[in-house]
Structure formats: structure tokens, C-alpha cells
């Protein structure tokens, strides 16, 4: 076996991805622009803020060459708001991911998203959802990895005591883990259909992926005969099943 790993990303791989998230730093020393494989870095001029990938920001932080500005969603008020939403407003689902960034901003080149088919559509970790200008009140896809990395290496840059942030994160992890656990129990009955987990985080997926998909695959195999019979019936019934009645709101 050339790759002795199960399908899906491991925790370490997810954390590696999260280190590509852009964060905002305040440089403490000048540093000229560097030619990296991922593009040129901005020249660093204290006290002007700059955006860099997390892995580089952490390197600078460890060398005391910069401070990291925590993203707004990591502030205690924002975390409390999300916990409220996850427990009181939507106790069944994950709170929604940050809204897609608006169209290109001429003052912020490189953050333009979908413009034409020729362009790559950016998605996490390449959306600016962990910078100082990211919206509060939304957890980005790599929320837990970024939060843990910042707490571990830039605890003194937090807007609040690290202990307070940490305890809110624990609560959030607990609330959401319970939702993940209940996601498979609906599969036992009839009439389930599409399973949606919008808002779930990358680490949360890494932890539960194999088990959840294992349950879904098992249910499919046990129901394979029934499913084939149903399809055959529908075929003979003359395509009653043409459109399930749901609106195809394409919104394009």
C-alpha cells in the first residue's frame, strides 16, 4: 500500500490545510517582500497591518517579529452569540458558515471570487475568513484548528484572557459534537433523503467522517434490494417520479 491512510483527511492533514488560512498580523520588524511558491508576500512595515498565511504568521510570531490579530469571530462576545444560536435558535443544525465574500474589492485585490468560468472559485482555506476583517458571529470551516493554533502560540494577542476564550470553545465543541452524533440516528426510519451538514467544521468532519459514511454506506447496502425494486416500480409506473416537487431554485 502506497498510502496506508483511510479515505478522507486525517486531523493532521486538516490542521495542515488550516495553516493556509490568511490571518492579519501587525509586524514588529521590517521585512522585505519574499518570493514564495504561493506568490509574493507583502513587504512588512511596522505598524501597518498585513495579511499572511497562518503558517507564516506563526513563524513570525515565534520569532517575535509580529503579533497576530485574532479574527473577530474568536472574540468572547462573538463566541457567546454563536453558542446562543447553536443551543437556543437552531438546536438541531450547525450555525451557518460565513456569508460568501462580496464581489471583488478594488482595494483588496486577490479576494475577488467567481468572475467567470475561467477563474478558479476560491474556497476554504483560501477565503479570507480568519483575517481581522472577517465577520463576527460566524464560524469558518477551519474554526477550531485556527482557534487552537492561535491560543497555543499567540495567546497573548487574544482580545480576552485565553482561558475565557478556551472555555467558550469547549462549550461550542460539546454542543456541536452532540449534533454530529445525532446525524446518523435518523437513517433508521424510512423517508430520509438528502443529508445536509452545512456549517460543520473540518476537524469535526475528520473525527466523524469514517463512522458517519460507514453508517450511510451500510444502510445503502442493506436497502439495495428494496431500492432496486422501487426503481423498477417507478419505471413501470411511467415516471411519476419525474420531479420530486421540490423547487429548483437555481439562483444563478
Amino acid at each position, binding site marked *: 500500500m502506497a498510502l496506508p491512510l483511510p479515505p478522507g483527511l486525517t486531523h493532521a492533514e486538516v490542521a495542515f490545510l488550516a495553516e*493556509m488560512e490568511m490571518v492579519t498580523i501587525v509586524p514588529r520588524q521590517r521585512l522585505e517582500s519574499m518570493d514564495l*511558491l504561493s*506568490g509574493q508576500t507583502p513587504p512588512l512595515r511596522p505598524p501597518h497591518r498585513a495579511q499572511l498565511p497562518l503558517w507564516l504568521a506563526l513563524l513570525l510570531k515565534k520569532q517575535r517579529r509580529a503579533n497576530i490579530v485574532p479574527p473577530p469571530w474568536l472574540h468572547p462576545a462573538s463566541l457567546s452569540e454563536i453558542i446562543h444560536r447553536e443551543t437556543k435558535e437552531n438546536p438541531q443544525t450547525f450555525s451557518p458558515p460565513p456569508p*460568501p465574500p462580496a464581489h471583488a474589492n478594488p482595494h483588496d485585490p486577490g479576494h475577488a471570487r467567481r468572475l467567470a468560468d475561467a*477563474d478558479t472559485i476560491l474556497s476554504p482555506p483560501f477565503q479570507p475568513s480568519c483575517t481581522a476583517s472577517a465577520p463576527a458571529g460566524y464560524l469558518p470551516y477551519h474554526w477550531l484548528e485556527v482557534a487552537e493554533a492561535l491560543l497555543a502560540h499567540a495567546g497573548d494577542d487574544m482580545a480576552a484572557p485565553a482561558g475565557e476564550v478556551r472555555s467558550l470553545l469547549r462549550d461550542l465543541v460539546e454542543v456541536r459534537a452532540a449534533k454530529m452524533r445525532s446525524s446518523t440516528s435518523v437513517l433508521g426510519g424510512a423517508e*430520509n433523503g438528502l443529508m*445536509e451538514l452545512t456549517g460543520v467544521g473540518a476537524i469535526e468532519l475528520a473525527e466523524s467522517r469514517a463512522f458517519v459514511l460507514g453508517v450511510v454506506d451500510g444502510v445503502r447496502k442493506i*436497502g*439495495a434490494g428494496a431500492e432496486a425494486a422501487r426503481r423498477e416500480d417507478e419505471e413501470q409506473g411511467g415516471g411519476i417520479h419525474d420531479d420530486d416537487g421540490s423547487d429548483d431554485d437555481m*439562483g444563478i
Partner: protein
Amino acid sequence: MDIDDILREVDPTFHAIPQEKRDLQDLTRAWVAERCAPELLQWPANDLFERVNENIKRQIEKVEEMTGDMDPKTNFVLIVLQTELERFKYLVRSYLRARIAKIDCHTLHYLSTDDLRSRLSEMELAYATRHQALLHNHYLSSFLSSFPPALQNLNDTAGNVTMIDAPDLDSAVFVRLLRDTAVEARDVDVDSSTGGQENAIYILRWSDAKPLVDAGSAELV
């Protein structure tokens, strides 16, 4: 209409996202997809890996040139360059090995039709062909050569189990929509059609997800 749209109209080769960033997004997405999909995916057609590999080579040369310079300032740059290099090397390595693992698992399947063969890079095709030959030879010398001739095949598809193992294309995967799009999902009791919103995450059978992924409307996560 914003500035990028205007620029695009006057210059169709204009990209709002710089090439390096697009390549890293594509490389990362290809890696995640290959680690998550139950079957081997298409080798990227746009020379992505050839280009990335070339860039890595050039960066290694640059690091070598800078090496030996003990000026603490350039020293830090060197640390940054090397750290990033290791990250890129890792991505490409893990991607290539994920592919080789899938090819090894279902070699005959991927060699069985032109369509499937075209998913492999030239090097992978050479590797797969040779690997299959080595295995066949190993079976022959271990026991198969003393079998009756009619039973010596490795690609017999008669009987209730075909000898050409194939990946289970109905295996479930997680996908994220990259734009608003209609999602068709088959399930045991009921098939459904939903207007999915950008950023939504679903569990789909790979066979239902593949058209969305191929069209660039969704990505594996």
C-alpha cells in the same frame, strides 16, 4: 459591475486571482479530492503538476544559492522559503501516493478501457502496466502456472463475481457546493432534487456527486 469585470472585458486573459494562488487552490483541491473520492480522478489536464514541480525545482535551486549566507536577515527568509517548500513537497507527495494506492488497488479496472486509462498520467500508466505484469508473474510462479490453462486468467468476468475489482462508486462522500446549484440525490426510499446553496455541505453518493464536482459546482471535503 466591478473593476475586475471591466478588466476582463478588455483583456480576456486577465485573472483576478494571481496564477500562484490559483495553482495552490487547484493543487490543494485536487489533493483533498483524491484523498476523499472512492475512485481515481482525472490527472489534471492543465499541466498543473508539471508546473508546480518545475517551480519546486527552481525554488530548491534558489535555496541552495542562498545557503551559506549567515546574515541573520536572509537567514530568516531562508527559513521561510524552506518551510514553504516542505509544505509543497508534502502536498505533491501525498497526492501522488494517494493516486498510486488507488491504482494498485484496482489496476486491471483502470487499465480496462481507454476512458479509464486516460485518467492516469503517462508515468502512472507505465507504473500500472508494469505492476500488473509483476503481480501476474508472481501468481504464475507461485501456483497459477500449474492450473489448467482455462483457469489461468486474471480478467475473467463470467461467474457471479468478476475478477476485475472496481471501486464502489456509490460510496458516500461529503461535498461542499461552490455555487448555487441543483442537487440530485438518490437514496434507498426516495430520490430527491434540491436547490442547493453555495457553501452547503451534503452527504451524497459519489456517483451523484461526481457530475457536480466535474462541472466545478462542488468540491469534496
